[in-house]
């Protein structure tokens, strides 16, 4: 498996650049992964990423898109609680790109 070096430490990622070990995740790694994805992290991005990590910790899976949009609406305002806004933040798709930056495994299936 490929390794990446962030702040003097090296970490294992899979072929697509997803972090192999959830526990390795740090904010610096998130910044690095975001840069790889050409995503500039704003406060709104961090709200999403932090929510993903909290949800994953409780349920061992990333939240469904509906669950995520509702959480975003609560934190950032109802006008932002929709799929369109999430795509603006994470153009390659909120489920995959946001999970990657949050250090979560890639969601699989017919999605």
């Amino acid at each position, binding site marked *: 498996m490929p390794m990446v070096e962030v702040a003097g430490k090296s970490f294992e990622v899979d072929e697509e650049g997803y972090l192999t070990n959830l526990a390795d995740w740090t904010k610096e790694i998130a910044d690095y992964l975001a840069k790889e994805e050409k995503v500039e992290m704003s406060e709104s991005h961090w709200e999403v990423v932090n929510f993903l990590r909290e949800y994953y910790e409780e349920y*061992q899976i990333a939240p469904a898109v509906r669950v995520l949009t*509702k959480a975003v609406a609560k934190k950032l305002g109802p006008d932002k609680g929709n799929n369109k806004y999430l795509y603006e933040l994470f153009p390659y798709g909120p489920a995959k790109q946001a999970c990657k930056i949050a250090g979560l495994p890639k969601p699989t*299936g017919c999605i």
Partner: protein
Amino acid sequence: MAAAEFEVPTLTEYVDVPKIKEGAMAHVKSFVSPQVTQEFMGYPWALGEDWKERALFKMGDLLGKYRSLRVFMDACVHCGACTDKCHYFLGTADPNNMPVARQELMRKVYRRYFTLPGKIAPWLVGAEDLTQETLEKWYSYYHQCSECRRCSVYCPYGIDTAEITMAGREILNYAGMGQKYSNEILVKVQKIGNNLGLPGPALEDTLAGLEEDIEADTGVPVKMPLDVEGAEILLVTPSADFFSEPHVESLIGYAKVFHAAGVSWTLSSKASEAGNFGLFNGSYETMRTVAMRIRDAALELGCKRIIVGECGHAWRVAYSFWNTLNGVGYGGDDPFARKLQEQLDSRYPQPMHICEYTWDLIQQGVLKFDKSANDDRVITFHDSCNVSRGSRMGTEPGGQFTIPRNIIRAVANNFHDMDADTIGEATFCCGGGGGLLTDDLIEVRVKGAYPRMNAFNNVAKGRQVNFLALICAICKAQFTKVFPYYGFDRNMVGGVHQLVSTAIKLD
């Protein structure tokens, strides 16, 4: 990552047969399945010293088990009828994506080891040794086939390339080259209960959230029951319906239909997946193991009917294989299958497609609609390959084509079909079916969608169509991803029951 690193085909009025480009897609290699996944599936995770013996053993095994495979190997007369029928050939111009050439990759090995002339004089009959290079080609091109069976419609001998691709993938797995995407999904469905890996508590939380949404939206307490013992209907649907947009809109639609019908129904956390990637992999044993979860859930919950949600290949497996796989549909003959058959209500077809169920209720006058609620949409319908060419709906021939369209016409005012050569049994695949719905195959997916996108573009331009209605989770995810490559908004993609959901009147 979002920008295309390949040329997206230009949309034109007609799909021209392209001038061939030798090796245009030879670079494509889907990620190979890692050790932990292959071990769980019972396959080696690399080519060992005996890879060739293993590959040939498995090929012989499949040729012995499936008479069809041997006939398909022998029967081709190279007439060329299939050559321009594959969406991947039309979109990539790679001659190995012509169905006959895809078959030939296996056929030349078959001739060499399983026919007398090929054993004695291989150079006379186009027989070739199985080399690692050939195996690599198999891996590449058997993952550029979505097993959609369009070519088989036009083959005068009825040769089914899908079955050859399935066999190819099973041989590859057995030799030690599995595909990461499909095999990881098959592990998750067996370990956790669905392709996504959505555990029971997360499913419960998601469904509770959806109930809140529907009530906030309509004022009606429509329920999304989970693991309810004694419920009349067990709904088995793709797990993407819980997770993704636009899939979830159809799930809401099914729930509203059940609510309006006043029946008791339930989802199951054990059988929280309709999809069955065992079909794509060509392993009957895997397909059976995955299908068994549904029988187990139905027996545990005591349901009288089993209904399948909007999922193309799941419906093929349910309609055409469940019978003998797990006994739903009165074919299985073991104690548990017999028990299930006694339990299920014989007045209804088992299993039943959600479209059959909704259409029955519409015909009975049970459901009421405000069709004008869909007036902002001008709709067309994409026939999913596995539903069109691998199953049926209703009691009339072609019911799988008429029933979804009848539903759309009952809930919306504006509907136009795409070109006749691209729908019905001639439907073009979305480009992401058969285990190809993965980011590492995005080039294959975008190019494979070209014939369908052309047909859609024509009705979008000519008829102002702005909504592509679907009954398959793979189609939904694939079009959501590839629409923007062709300049269309991803929100133009949705489900048939999303349209039902918009128009249905609830009390």
